[in-house]
């Protein structure tokens, strides 16, 4: 069979030419492909290698354990407590709804928990653990673990959370941590990457806030390989980070606890300072609150209750509260006058019950007056007129200088929140702050710790410690950081005339131990433990001439917030001062009745290192004291109950 075929020779040259053209185009395109390979794989290889690495490697932060806070004897004040949460992983759970229903039979779950968990599981990848319930009890964890075979995909995870074992007792000093908020972050200049961890806890107040940088520690990092949908494939490297530094405070947990318990029910503050080292053994603030409420974020109800309480439980009154020091300021005025030579200790002034200065009558607290008074008696009886006179002779500037020398009107460097400066007013101060000239009447008021003078309980304690020792005692709250002892607070001698100082201490001794002293009822009779002190009662309202004429209204008849503040300072033992104490009871009435007994009890507690024997008290008080000690023991045993639930 023969078929007609098209001979190729006819179109051969054209065909070859066309094929060669086509081949050239193909070679050209292949050249482009080769060039592109070189461009991507050789020229830009490093860039793409970096991108590939970024793709697959994720950095995770490992939160370090926060530094612990101890008292001076090693009692833990702030610890890290394991907290457990129950999580579920969808891909391991099979039917999540059924697994959760079974979980509800094992441990208490609210209906909302299950619904919320199922909803959350729909939003995340199937391998991401979803929290079913946070902060569950150890019992629940045990039950879930025991029933693990019936609960596929459900496990317990553990984390660390701050816990304050002595919660309310040290709330104001130690402060508290809380979850870091966007607002907190916006205030920080260069926030630690740790703060990006959701609900990371950081110090909000007190020592927790002030020593945040030391307590926090350094974040560890974990480099993990993830795939395209974010599943963790393996861990590449791990760096555990550095745990936070442990901090030891100068507080004595027992004494602190006692001070809080002794003041319970009042709105008051007390400071116990070691005269020989400046160590703050107790910084009491009443009423108090449970800092553990803040750790996980406080509820609105609790917050409102704490914030609207007229006793201001959140305020650290011992360092934040500035009060007119009243008669406790008289040592300052007297020392300023005698040190300058304006007045000698033997000089006597006549007290008729009032003093007229430029047409205004300034009254002594004793209507009938004290008659002729020298320095020793003026302090013992707390005669106001003596100080009106002495104050005018020495002048305000020297009084203010003495106040600052003794620690009033200067901010002490204590790592607590919002430490107040107080006011030791002088001519310049009034010009700056009130744009007015200083008047004699201002001096008269200031000489008995009224008018513009303001001092915090901490400052009053420091003042007392300086009078007791004659040394520049500065308060110290941090004993050791990371085991390193911090410098002592005992400074150089103040350079005051020791003879005068001895006279001041002697009359403070008589305030308590002389039968006519204003605090005689609060004396200590135990051998070698006797104390010296000074009462103070500061007015928070003006007494009009009219009221004075018909008789000053007594504190009991006034609403709480208009009553006088009761103040007290003391040091003990008299012959070898170890502790100085300052007590302020807000609107507590007279210092001798409301504040001095608290000071006495705290002092005895500090001296004995526990509850003192009743023999330390005068025999007529013992019955009353025994009752009170029983009450306080009960409160101290109940501290572990959160303050607000108790209330």
């Amino acid at each position: 069979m023969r078929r007609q075929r098209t001979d190729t020779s006819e179109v051969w040259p054209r065909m070859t030419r066309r094929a060669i053209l086509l081949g050239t185009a193909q070679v050209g395109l292949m050249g482009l492909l080769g060039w592109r390979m070189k461009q991507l794989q050789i020229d830009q290889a490093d860039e793409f290698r970096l991108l590939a690495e970024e793709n697959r490697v994720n950095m995770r932060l490992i939160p370090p354990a926060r530094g612990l806070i101890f008292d001076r004897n090693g009692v833990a004040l702030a610890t890290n407590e394991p907290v457990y949460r129950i999580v579920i992983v969808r891909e391991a759970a099979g039917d999540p709804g059924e697994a959760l229903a079974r979980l509800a039979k094992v441990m208490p779950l609210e209906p909302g928990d299950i619904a919320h968990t199922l909803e959350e599981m729909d939003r995340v990848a199937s391998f991401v653990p979803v929290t079913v319930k946070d902060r569950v009890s150890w019992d629940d964890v045990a039950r879930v673990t025991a029933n693990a075979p019936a609960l596929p995909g459900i496990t317990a995870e553990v984390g660390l959370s701050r816990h304050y074992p002595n919660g309310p007792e040290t709330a104001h000093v130690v402060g508290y941590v809380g979850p870091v908020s966007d607002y907190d972050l916006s205030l920080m200049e260069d926030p630690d990457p740790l703060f990006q961890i959701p609900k990371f806890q950081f110090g909000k107040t007190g020592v927790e806030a002030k020593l945040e940088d030391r307590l926090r520690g350094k974040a560890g990092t974990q480099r993990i390989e993830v795939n395209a949908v974010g599943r963790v494939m393996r861990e590449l490297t791990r760096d555990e980070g550095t745990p936070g530094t442990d901090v030891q405070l100068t507080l004595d947990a027992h004494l602190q606890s006692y001070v809080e318990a002794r003041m319970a029910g009042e709105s008051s503050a007390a400071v116990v300072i070691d005269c020989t080292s400046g160590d703050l053994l107790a910084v009491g603030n009443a009423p108090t609150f449970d800092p553990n409420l803040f750790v996980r974020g406080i509820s609105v109800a609790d917050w409102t209750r704490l914030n609207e309480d007229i006793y201001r439980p959140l305020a650290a009154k011992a360092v934040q509260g500035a009060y007119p020091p009243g008669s406790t300021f008289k040592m300052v005025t007297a020392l300023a006058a005698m040190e300058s030579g304006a007045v000698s200790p033997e000089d006597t002034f006549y007290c008729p019950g009032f003093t007229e200065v430029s047409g205004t009558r300034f009254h002594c607290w004793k209507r009938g007056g004290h008659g002729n008074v020298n320095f020793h008696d003026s302090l013992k009886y707390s005669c106001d007129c003596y100080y009106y006179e002495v104050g005018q002779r020495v002048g305000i500037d020297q009084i203010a200088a003495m106040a600052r020398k003794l620690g009033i009107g200067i901010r002490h460097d204590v790592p607590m929140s919002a430490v107040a400066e107080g006011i030791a007013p002088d001519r310049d101060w009034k010009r700056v702050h009130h744009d007015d000239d200083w008047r004699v009447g201002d001096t008269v008021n200031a000489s008995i710790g009224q008018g513009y003078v303001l001092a915090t309980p901490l400052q009053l304690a420091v003042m007392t410690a300086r009078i007791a020792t004659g040394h520049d005692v500065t308060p110290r709250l941090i004993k050791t950081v990371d085991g390193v002892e911090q410098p002592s607070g005992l400074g150089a001698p103040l350079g005051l005339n020791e003879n005068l100082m001895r006279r001041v201490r002697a009359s403070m001794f008589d305030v308590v131990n002389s039968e006519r002293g204003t605090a005689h009822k609060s004396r200590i009779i135990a051998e070698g433990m006797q104390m010296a002190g000074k009462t103070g009662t500061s007015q928070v309202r003006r007494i009009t001439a009219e009221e004075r004429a018909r008789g000053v209204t007594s504190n009991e008849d006034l609403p709480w917030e208009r009553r006088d503040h009761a103040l007290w300072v003391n040091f003990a033992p008299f012959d070898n001062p170890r502790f100085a104490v300052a007590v302020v009871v807000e609107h507590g009435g007279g210092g001798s009745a409301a504040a001095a007994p608290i000071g006495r009890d705290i002092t005895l507690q500090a001296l004995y290192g526990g509850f003192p024997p009743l023999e330390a008290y005068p025999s007529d008080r013992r019955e009353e004291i025994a009752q009170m000690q029983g009450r306080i023991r009960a409160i101290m045993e109940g501290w572990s109950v959160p303050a607000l639930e108790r209330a």
Partner: protein
Amino acid sequence: MSYLDYQVKYVPSGLRKLLYVNWPLVLLVTAVSCMGFIMLTSIASGRMDLWAEPQIQRFGLGFVLMMMVAMTPIWVWRSTAWIAYLVSLGLLVLVELVGEVGMGAQRWIDIGPLRLQPSEVSKITLVLALAAYYDWLPARRVSNPIWLVPPLLLIFLPVVLVLAQPNLGTAVLILGTGGAVLWCAGVHWAYFAVVFGSIGGAVYAVFETRGTPWQFLHDYQYRRIDTFLDPSQDPLGAGYNITQAKIALGSGGFTGKGFMQGTQSRLNFLPEKHTDFILNTLAEEFGFLGSFALLFLYGLILLFLFTAAMQCRDRFSQLLILGIGVTFFLLFAVNMLMVMGLAPVVGVPLPLVSYGGSQLLVLLIAFGLVQSAHVHRPR
């Protein structure tokens, strides 16, 4: 010289035909396929059973088919070209009616163990039909507009059917292959000039009118073009695949990360890693050396095809081999352009390497046709 003259005299017969097979070409095809097996094993983290084993089985089957096609005289294929074309067209229609739709709207028909994609088949049958047409058409009528109508119909029938699937990538490949055969057959260059000119003009018009009230495309279509031109504009959306593909390719560097060490593919950042984007895994694990070696092997295959075409003396064989060469070239060129970010992602697999049954079989049969022409060529 008449075909029949040498048919009897020079063409080997029986088992002696095996000696005349273009063995270097067979070796090259096998070598490229083996690169595919290695990559398919690597992508499955060393597991052969997932992709490599089925692929090897299909290659074995395809190899037997290739040799059977090669042993059959070329004039048999020439005379059955029309039937093959009509059958493939029928399959395309059938798949429209009863076919199954999968990822990327590829349609296939289940024939026993085999999933047949008729669009793959029609690429080769079109080349067969066009080669047979121009073999029959006297040379002086090649550029005659009237005689240009049948081949254009031959081309556009499968193109329209494939576009309807819709499978833009294969449609473009069919169109390109057909055009290349027409070009080699000697159709006047002015026709091509007009076509390229109008395409250029259309593209220009599309871009020029953008932002005006009479723009040609919808805004979202323009945005797709933008994403193609600069994938970094939308790295997590439409540009994600191509961005990750380039990262995989580029991060391989010169020598690569090593067998089964490619993080981009192993961690699933790479999409379609065993089919369309298999080159990126190859490049990531074997670097520039690996990807360039593959390009080089492809180039050698083209070179052998071109030589084989030139060695043939009849138009049918020449057009057939050149057409198959262009099909092969367009497959790997478009795929490589696509995975290296030089062309839009249209879903074209890498020939002989990507996982996929139909294409591998069709390609091996096509190489069988080349061998048939080579064995039975006039000597």
